């Protein structure tokens, strides 16, 4: 592109050299052409070559037209016509034209005028070319400007990506040291309190035994919290593999799995029709398992426990709900439900670390959906999550071949 533009520029410059010369030079060139042509005509006549004045003068006019432009070409025609009349038509050395030579002279003038008109045409073409060149230059300039802008944006993007990568790495190394370094002292607390109990069991009274047991219990609990936190952070970092997911099948699988651990319980399951949505199957399974396990856990004291799972179809999103008749919660704390390690019940009432709903929220957000909950104390709770039914535009582009 750049090269051809330059070539065009050079070409135009050679055509337009006249434009860079002053008027005096151009008119001078015209006069000199005609004078040289006259000289040549006289010389040829001296050597007895007849009737060549006309072509020679026409050549002079053509030269002036070609190289010097419209004005000089008109001057050349005038000068040539006058000198032709003066020197080469009878009566010689007078500006009068004999009737016999009148057509001859007239043809010369017309011929000269035609040649001169080529100059005008040429000028128009030249104008057009110059205009095109200017346009092209502007366009090239604009394109360069745009390219610069794109390059700048790309650089910015690359910088952001590097930053993101760095902070991701940092997060990963943080998770790594949590996983490795925090576990070791925990193991020592458990191990040595166990050894203490074994070693000093005779010298410890009931209180002492209880203290040691509490130490061990707390350390075990901390181990659970660390594991949950690591699993939670892995969900944020893991790559998602999104496909069409049959929610009906997913929910019945999850329910079947959880039902195995509900022996002795009386649970009335009510599962409505569920659509196909778009997402990462294993992550969505985690969402369903978390919500259904919660429903099972918080309906422990109900006989029968009622758990309903269903969906509300929207335009682009589908909203799935899990409803139970369990312990419920006070709506004024609804915003705390999805926080990491947030619990609304005492550990003696319901076990758990408080990571489940945080995990649910994180997964649903990663799918571009939303979570919410409704409930009342002792009157059950309903948890909703929405999911996209089809991949969004960016994902469609990414998955297209």
């Amino acid at each position: 592109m750049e090269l051809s533009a330059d070539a065009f520029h050079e070409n135009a410059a050679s055509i337009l050299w006249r434009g860079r010369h002053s008027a005096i030079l151009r008119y001078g060139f015209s006069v000199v052409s005609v004078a040289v042509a006259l000289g040549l005509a006289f010389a040829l006549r001296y050597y007895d070559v007849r009737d060549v004045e006309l072509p020679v003068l026409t050549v002079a006019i053509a030269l002036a037209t070609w190289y010097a432009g419209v004005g000089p070409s008109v001057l050349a025609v005038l000068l040539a016509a006058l000198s032709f009349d003066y020197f080469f038509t009878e009566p010689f050395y007078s500006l009068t034209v004999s009737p016999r030579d009148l057509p001859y002279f007239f043809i010369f003038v017309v011929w000269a005028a035609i040649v001169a008109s080529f100059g005008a045409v040429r000028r128009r073409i030249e104008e057009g070319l110059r205009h095109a060149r200017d346009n092209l230059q502007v366009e090239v300039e604009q394109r360069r400007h745009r390219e610069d802008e794109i390059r700048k944006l790309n650089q910015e993007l690359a910088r952001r990506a590097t930053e993101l990568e760095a902070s991701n790495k940092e997060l990963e190394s943080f998770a790594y040291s949590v996983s490795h370094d925090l576990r070791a002292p925990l193991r020592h607390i458990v191990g040595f309190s166990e050894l203490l109990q074994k070693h000093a069991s005779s010298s410890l009274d009931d209180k002492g035994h209880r203290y040691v047991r509490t130490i061990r219990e707390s350390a075990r609990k901390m181990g659970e919290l660390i594991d949950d936190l690591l699993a939670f952070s892995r969900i944020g970092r893991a790559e998602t593999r999104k496909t069409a997911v049959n929610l009906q099948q997913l929910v019945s699988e999850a329910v079947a799995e959880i039902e195995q651990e509900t022996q002795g319980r009386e649970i009335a399951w009510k599962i409505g029709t569920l659509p196909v949505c778009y997402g990462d199957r294993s992550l969505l399974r985690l969402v369903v398992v978390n919500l259904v396990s919660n429903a099972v856990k918080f309906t422990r004291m109900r006989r029968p426990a009622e758990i309903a799972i269903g969906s509300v179809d929207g335009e682009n999103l589908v909203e799935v709900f899990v409803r139970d008749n369990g312990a419920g919660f006070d709506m004024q704390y609804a915003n705390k439900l999805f926080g990491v390690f947030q619990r609304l019940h005492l550990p003696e009432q319901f076990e758990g670390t408080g990571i489940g709903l945080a995990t649910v929220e994180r997964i649903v957000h990663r799918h571009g959906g939303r979570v919410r909950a409704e409930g009342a104390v002792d009157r059950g709770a309903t948890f909703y999550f929405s999911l996209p039914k089809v991949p969004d535009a960016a994902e469609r582009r990414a998955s297209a071949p």
Partner: protein
Amino acid sequence: MTTLGRILIVEDDPNDVELTLTALDDYNLANEVVIARDGQQALDYLYCRGEFKARSTGNPAVMLLDLKLPKVGGLEVLQQVKSDERLKTIPVVVLTSSNEEKDMMRSYSLGVNAYVVKPVDFHEFVNAVKELGVFWAVINEPPPGSVTR
């Protein structure tokens, strides 16, 4: 239980060393244990150099290797051992707190013989160490000519 192979434990944490020894002691496996406190010491032992110049030759029956070690890391030790003709037959068991997938993949690709995550629970920990000790030092047949008993 008369012919026990030697167990090389590479572990920097003295508490972990004590717990491991306690676990092995419960099953009379603690006699032939050699402790290396970092990767450098472990390699010195394996190559009979430095402070281990005078030790009787022969490879240990098993090496229990922690990954996070001062000076030379566990993975480096593993790489060195598995790339040395004389040492590559030593069974290496990674015994670590890390259950990161990255560490496991790296260890297995370097040719580790087993990967055990130290359980937080003391009983589980004792059981794990005991089973490792019994399996590798008693049940498992080491490569012929490699181990001195």
